[in-house]
C-alpha cells in the first residue's frame, strides 16, 4: 500500500532550481533510501515533505491526504517524524526531556491541567515518561537519561534524535544522514537499529552517503542529481544504472 505519494514536486530558490519534477511512491513497511551527490536536493525534498518549505508545484500525499501547505507540527501529528542532518537536539536539556519532546504531539494537557495536576494530566505524564524511556532503551541510551544532551558523544546524539523521533509514534520516519560521523561499529549498529524500526512496522525514508549502509538496508532507492530524479529501483538495479554510475564518477564507495 502506498504510504507516501510524491509527484511533480518542484522548488526553486531565487533562480536556482533545487528540486525539479521529483516523484516517487513509498510503500508501507519498506525502507527507502535517497542518494545522490551533494547539492542534489535530497534534504530539500525532505524539507518539502515535512512542511519546512512549500513546494512551487507538485503533490505530496500521505495516507491519501495532501500535506502541501500544512504546517510542520500538524504533519508530525499525522504520523511523520524526522531527524536533522546537522543534529538538532535541545542541547541544554537532559536526554529524557529530549525524548519527551517526541511525545509532545501525543499528549493533550494544557495550562490548566498542568497547573492543577488533574488526574488525567498525571496519568498522561507517567504514560509518556514510560514511552520516552522505552524509546531510549530501544536505542540504548536509557542509562544516560539524566545527562544533558550536549554531553553525549556524537554517535549517541544521533541515536537520541532517532529515539525522539520514534517517541511520536510515527507511521513514517525520515532520517537525514543518520550515519553521519559514525564509525564502522556504530554504523553496523545503526543498520541493525533501522532493521528493528522496520520490524516495528514503521516505514523508513533516509538520506545517506554511506553506500554500504544504503545497499545493505534499503529495499528501494531513489537517486537525485541536480534536483532531478535520475533513477529508481532496488539496490541491484540502481548500482548497475549507468546514469547513477556517471553521477558518482570519481566518488569513493566503501
Amino acid at each position: 500500500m502506498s504510504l507516501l505519494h510524491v509527484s511533480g514536486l518542484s522548488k526553486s530558490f531565487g533562480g536556482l532550481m533545487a528540486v525539479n519534477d521529483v516523484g516517487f511512491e513509498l510503500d508501507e513497511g519498506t525502507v527507502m533510501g535517497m542518494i545522490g551527490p551533494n547539492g542534489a536536493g535530497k534534504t530539500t525534498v525532505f524539507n518539502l515533505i515535512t512542511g519546512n518549505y512549500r513546494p512551487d508545484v507538485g503533490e505530496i500525499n500521505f495516507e491519501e491526504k495532501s500535506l502541501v501547505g500544512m504546517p510542520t507540527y500538524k504533519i508530525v501529528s499525522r504520523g511523520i517524524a524526522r531527524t536533522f542532518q546537522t543534529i538538532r537536539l535541545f542541547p541544554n536539556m537532559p536526554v529524557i526531556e529530549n525524548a519527551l519532546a517526541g511525545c509532545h504531539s501525543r499528549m493533550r494537557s494544557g495550562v490548566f491541567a498542568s497547573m492543577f495536576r488533574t488526574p488525567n494530566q498525571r496519568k498522561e505524564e507517567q504514560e509518556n515518561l514510560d514511552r520516552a524511556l522505552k524509546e531510549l532503551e530501544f536505542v540504548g541510551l536509557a542509562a544516560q537519561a539524566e545527562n544533558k544532551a550536549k554531553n553525549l558523544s556524537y554517535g549517541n546524539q544521533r541515536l537520541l534524535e532517532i529515539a525522539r523521533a520514534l517517541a511520536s509514534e510515527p507511521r513514517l520516519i525520515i532520517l537525514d544522514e543518520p550515519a553521519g560521523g559514525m564509525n564502522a561499529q556504530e554504523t553496523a549498529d545503526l543498520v541493525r537499529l533501522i532493521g528493528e524500526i522496520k520490524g516495528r512496522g514503521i516505514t523508513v525514508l533516509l538520506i545517506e552517503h554511506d553506500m554500504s549502509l544504503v545497499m545493505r538496508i534499503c529495499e528501494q532507492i531513489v537517486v537525485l542529481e541536480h534536483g532531478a530524479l535520475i533513477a529508481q529501483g532496488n539496490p541491484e538495479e540502481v548500482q548497475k544504472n549507468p546514469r547513477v554510475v556517471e553521477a558518482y564518477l570519481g566518488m569513493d564507495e566503501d
Partner: protein
Amino acid sequence: MNKNHVICAVFAAAMVVSPIFLNLYWVDVLNNIGLYAILGLSLNFILGHTGLFHMGHAAFFAVGAYVTAVLNTTLGSPILWLVPVSGIAAAIFAAVVARPIIHLRGDYLLIVTIGIVEIVRIALVNNIFGLTGGANGIFGISRPDFFGFTIRRPTHFFYYIWLFLAVSVYLFRKLEDSRFGRALNYIKEDELAAEGNGINTGHYKLVAFVLGAFWAGMAGNIYASKMTIISPQSFTFWESVLYFTIVILGGSGSIPGVILGAFLIAGLPEVFREFASARMLIFGAAMVAMMIFRPSGILAPIPRKYKLGRWRKKEALR
C-alpha cells in the same frame, strides 16, 4: 526534605515574621520587592522559559492597573472582584497585540514590544477614551476589602502581596514541571526542532504572552489598590527594563532566580540610597559585566525531576 526545601522553609519563615522586626519603611520596601517579583515571574514565562525578547511587559501591568482604577472609581466595583477582571483584561490585550507579532525574529520582536509599551503610555497620557485621566492619572482608588477587613497598612499589604506571590510560585512551579513548561523550553532551545517534533510554536508563544499578561494584570490591580493613585509614569519602558533585568540577571527560567533578582533590583537601591546618582551607573556597568561573565543569570532554574525509579527497578529485575 533536601537542601532546597530547607532553604525555602527558612526563607518563608523569615518572611512571615519580618514585619515584626522591621519599621514600616522597610516593610513597604518588601512590598515593592514582592510586586516586582510577581511581575518578574510573570515575565519569566515569556522571556525566561520561551526566550522571547519582551521589553513591553509594563504595558500589561498598566492595562491591569488602569482597568481596576477605572472600574473602581467610576462603577465602584470592589477591588478584590477586580483582581481576575484585570488579569483577563490584560490577557485579552496581550492576545490581540501579540498575535500579529508572534512570528517576528527576536530583535524585531524586541523593538515592537518597546513600541507597544510606548504606545500604551502615550495613549494613557493622551487620556484615551476619556477615561485614563491623562498625565495626572486616576486617584481615589479603593483599598481591597476582605469580608469587612480593609487591607490598608503596609503590614496588611505585606501579607497580601507575599501570599499572592507564594500561591503564584506554587502554581508556576507546577506549570514549569509539565508538558507546557517543557514545550516553552524546547522553543527557546531550538524553535525549528520544536516545530519538527509537533509543537505548535506559534500557539505556545502566544499562550506564554497571555499567561504572563494575566498575572501582570492582576499585579496591576494590587498596585493600584496599594497606591490608590496611578499615573502613566509608573508604566514606562524603563519599568519594563527593570522586569527584564530581574529575569535575566536573577536567572532566566528560574523561580528562585527571579525572586533574588527582585530583591537585588528593588531592594539594593534602597540599601544604597546615598549613592543615588551613581547607582544607575553601577547598574549599567553591572549588566554588561554579568553578560560577559555569567549570561545565564545568578541562579539556575530548578530542574524538573522524573521518576525514573520505577523503570530503574524494572531494569534491575531483568
